């Protein structure tokens, strides 16, 4: 259980954030400058808040009222910095073993999981971006922290490397079970790990909850929208390079071609605005994907209508953004069967 309730006053910036979570991974989302990284720095003890309380699993790290302020090195919080901060005068192994607590326990498991074994004797300056990122993650986790803070762990990476590090983090999460807080301005990157999202804007909490809940929350939606709302689904490749199946369902999607062979796990993204809804299957259209589903709910935030649709019977949900006129015309309401039309070109494979 992580409890944070802090206030920080700086000229031109006011941060007042309160939340508690028991999620395995909490994703903090918000536009640049919203205060996301500042929250992490406060939890880690690198920035001292003016007022408030920080408690992790009942252990108080900061309590202004009682004058408690546990020193950074005694907080047992692992941090993966956005700028990584690998120690340039040490090798990979030197960085990994730097923390005094990193020498206890069995590091081989983690080193294997992050595929760092072959890099151990390398100089950190000679590593690629993805390798550095993995070293930073390994270093933070090896000290067996009570909580791991990930500040934009995908920011410096693109495409394939981004999903690669997220996959690594996901495996670590399953294996290690240490709670994590991940900060990102990319919603899609948070959705892979985070069970719960905390949406921040201008130093304040706008909303907290599961992504599907937040998409139906008119107070949160405007903030989500500003950074581009996405649908993020898991897929598995099939024998055909352009056809993907959603795991656990019989639903197939036609996507841009991949070259990853059959039965590879992939993550796909597409925008809610690229999903059209219809009452029935449509004939004679260029849209390749027509997936049947059931409306579970919808919300109107003034700027648009977001409809949540559950695909198939037990499939994943997705969000479709439609106009208000369409809402009435299609008679959208919970329980109504619809067909989701998704253009193949709108689908991004990560």
């Amino acid at each position: 259980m992580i409890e944070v309730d802090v206030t920080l006053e700086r000229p031109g910036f006011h941060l007042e954030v309160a939340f508690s979570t028991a999620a395995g991974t909490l994703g903090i989302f918000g536009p640049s400058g919203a205060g996301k990284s500042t929250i992490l720095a406060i939890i880690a003890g690198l920035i001292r808040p003016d007022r408030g309380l920080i408690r992790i699993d009942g252990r108080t790290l900061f309590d202004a009222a009682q004058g408690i302020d546990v020193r950074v090195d005694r907080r047992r919080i692992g941090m993966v910095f956005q700028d990584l901060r690998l120690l340039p005068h040490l090798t990979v192994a030197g960085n990994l073993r730097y923390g005094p607590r990193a020498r206890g326990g069995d590091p081989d498991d983690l080193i294997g999981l992050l595929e760092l074994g072959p890099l151990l004797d390398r100089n950190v300056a000679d590593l690629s971006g993805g390798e550095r990122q993995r070293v930073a993650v390994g270093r933070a986790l090896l000290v067996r922290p009570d909580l791991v803070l990930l500040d934009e762990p995908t920011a410096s990476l693109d495409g394939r490397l981004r999903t690669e590090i997220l996959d690594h983090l996901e495996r670590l999460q399953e294996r290690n079970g240490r709670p994590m807080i991940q900060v990102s301005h990319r919603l899609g990157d948070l959705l892979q790990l985070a069970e719960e999202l905390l949406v921040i804007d201008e130093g304040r909490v706008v909303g907290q909850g599961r992504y599907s809940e937040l998409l139906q929350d008119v107070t949160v939606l405007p903030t989500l929208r500003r950074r581009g709302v996405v649908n993020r689904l898991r897929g598995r490749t099939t024998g055909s390079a352009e056809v993907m199946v959603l795991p656990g369902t019989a639903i197939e999607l036609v996507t841009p071609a991949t070259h990853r062979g059959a039965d590879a796990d992939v993550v796909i993204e597409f925008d809610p605005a690229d999903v059209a809804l219809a009452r029935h299957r449509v004939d004679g259209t260029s849209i390749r994907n027509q997936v049947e589903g059931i409306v579970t709910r919808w919300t109107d935030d003034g700027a648009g209508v977001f409809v949540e649709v559950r695909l198939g019977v037990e499939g994943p949900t997705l969000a479709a953004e439609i106009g208000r006129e369409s809402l009435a015309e299609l008679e959208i309401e919970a329980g109504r069967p619809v067909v989701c039309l998704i253009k193949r070109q709108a689908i991004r494979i990560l």
Partner: protein
Amino acid sequence: MLTAEEWSAVQLSLKVAGVAVLAMLLPGIACGWLLARRRFPGRSLLDALIHLPLVLPPVVVGYLLLRSVGRRGWLGGWLYEHFGLDLAFTWKAAAIASTVMGFPLLVRAVRLAIEATDPRLEAAAATLGAGPLRIFCTVTLPLALPGLLAGAVLAFARSLGEFGATIMVAGNIEGVTRTIPLAIFSEVQTPGGDASAMRLVVIAVIVSFVALLVSELLSRRLVRRSGGVS
């Protein structure tokens, strides 16, 4: 090649400069770190005090030292009374003069080297569980080391050339406190001493040149290393 007197001057110079650098190393690192990393009342005053020997006439520094460590000085008197230690007009007094004169150069170098090390790396080390002393020894110091060594070399070279303060507090006693600069001065004063002075001058130039070269090489390494920070 060198006469016994010249050779003794060279040896004495190296000994005095070496001891001076060793003596100033710890306080120099401490002061450099304080000035680079801490904001405290009296910081400007400490900074000015450390740099004073750089702008004062060396003879003035020597005089002040003599008044302090001489047998009638506040420190010298106390040392003599309690330990029977007599510092003035010994090689130790020359080493003290060199320490005070070289100290600002070392502090300046250490300060710049520590300022050039990234405090974000220290913060990262703290999140890994390292306390302040461990961070200093394993992050700050190693990263600042080339700059620190360069500063030590500079201070060493400065000590080799120290004249004014030394002659005030240690005198010019052959074989005891007559370092290279004092020996050169004495030879020039002596009829027929020009050749001897010349030999010592050549040695002084070579030693100083090598020291500067080493210092330059080390600072270049520091720049390269701090530039390699991700």
